[in-house]
């Protein structure tokens, strides 16, 4: 079981959380002029990276709030977690940091 650091409550066991999909998948503006490809890409297509991923979690059995996390999908190591609304971290910089 993983230990996940909720930005509001601190480190808690994985069973308190629910994974909520890839983060920063924004709904494009101007829905009426989008192509089918743009709509379907946001709905169904995911980057599914092997390595650093940016994802949403929800602390369902805790504060109940959504937040974002950067995790390595090979080791499952959580690089960082941060509050919803904060910008997506620079993954290249994080990778360089993790390599040290």
């Amino acid at each position, binding site marked *: *079981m*993983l230990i996940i650091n909720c930005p509001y409550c601190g480190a808690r066991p994985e069973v308190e959380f629910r994974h909520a999909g890839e983060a920063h998948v924004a709904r494009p503006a101007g829905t009426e002029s989008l192509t*089918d490809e743009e709509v379907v890409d946001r*709905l169904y*297509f995911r*980057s*599914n990276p092997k390595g650093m991923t940016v*994802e949403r979690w929800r602390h369902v059995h805790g504060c109940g709030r959504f937040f974002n996390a950067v995790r390595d999908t090979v080791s499952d190591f959580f690089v960082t977690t941060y509050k919803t609304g904060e910008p997506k971290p620079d993954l290249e910089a994080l990778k360089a940091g993790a390599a040290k």
Partner: protein
Amino acid sequence: MQPFSAFNLFRRALGGHTSWQAQWRQPSLKSEYDVVIIGAGGHGLATAYYLAKEHGVRNVAVIERGWLGGGNTGRNTTIIRSNYLFDESAALYDHAVKLWEGLSQGINYNVMYSARGVLMLAHTVHDVQSAQRHIHANRLNGVDNEWLSPEECREFCPPLNIAKNIRYPVMGGALQRRGGTARHDAVAWGFARAADALGVDIIQNCEVTAIRRNAAGAVEAVETTKGTVRTKKVGVVTAGHTSVVMGMAGVRMPLESFPLQALVSEPVKPAFPCVVMSNTIHAYISQSDKGEMVIGAGTDVYPSYSQRGALHIAEHTLDAICELFPMFRRMRMLRNWGGIVDVTPDRSPILSKTPVPGLYVNCGWGTGGFKATPGSGNVFAHTIARDEPHPINAPFSLDRFRDGFLIDEAAAAAVAH
């Protein structure tokens, strides 16, 4: 290829079994092939076999980064059934079951297909209604599936606990008698041997690192750790790694990869006659011919390539197994392991052409593609050889997401095994 037969077995026994040839060659990679299949799991090997056998395409390489059959093919709990809800799925999975029935003879290799029956338990009123709906839909499609009362379930599977006071009481079950199991390794080895005999080169310990496209955007070569291979057609059959490999050609996929785990017990005498599945409480069990109880769990809740599942997921499954089959409560587990399964939004696979000319993809089998191995290879070979889908896999295109023609077995079953 030396055929397996009673006579040959006897003849080579006289020589102390020293005169058997290797089951397949260890060829070196050529610089050009008509078709390159990436991934030597059951689906990739079956594709190569049917390309050679049914379409006369024999200048084929199957490129595998590890050892053949070492992916999900060699890690799964081998449940075979075809009682899916939708017409498209019933056609695809039943095509596979029909091929399983003659496969050992067809490839002259005993894949130990055993139609011992798959019983899917219902624990809630919703389960009962959903099972009944599946049974009716299956019958309309000519796929066998029948309803058993709790007592009939226990008669079919004597170790089953049908007491009313347990946490998830058994309210009945849907039984597909033609369902069952097959020996996973034998499926990979049998297809490898048969494809090799038809001239297919199986290249192991060779990772594909790039897919090169020409100025018109079409596939022209793949780069591997053993060098560059020119080819006009590439079939990607890499299960959990499909997003990574398709990314090499610049194609995004509607997939997420999750760890799925299984475990086996110490071997015991024959004690369990059939396959029992419970989608509601995530427990899947059968007994292998070696005597081990083969138990499948659910996926982890977050995407990962770590290839091992979380402990609490396995505990949850074992809770269910111990309650449904009290006689296993003191049984020891020998090993557990994980695979990486590629899951689509509608839990149906993708067997399709792609926006890149010459690039084909067979993926998205998620937690339940072993059962489809021969059928998948058969229709995917057709798709590659003719550059158009077989009628059975036409609905399983990549375009279905854009066009809104999902085959939503996810909503139908909650879990697809």
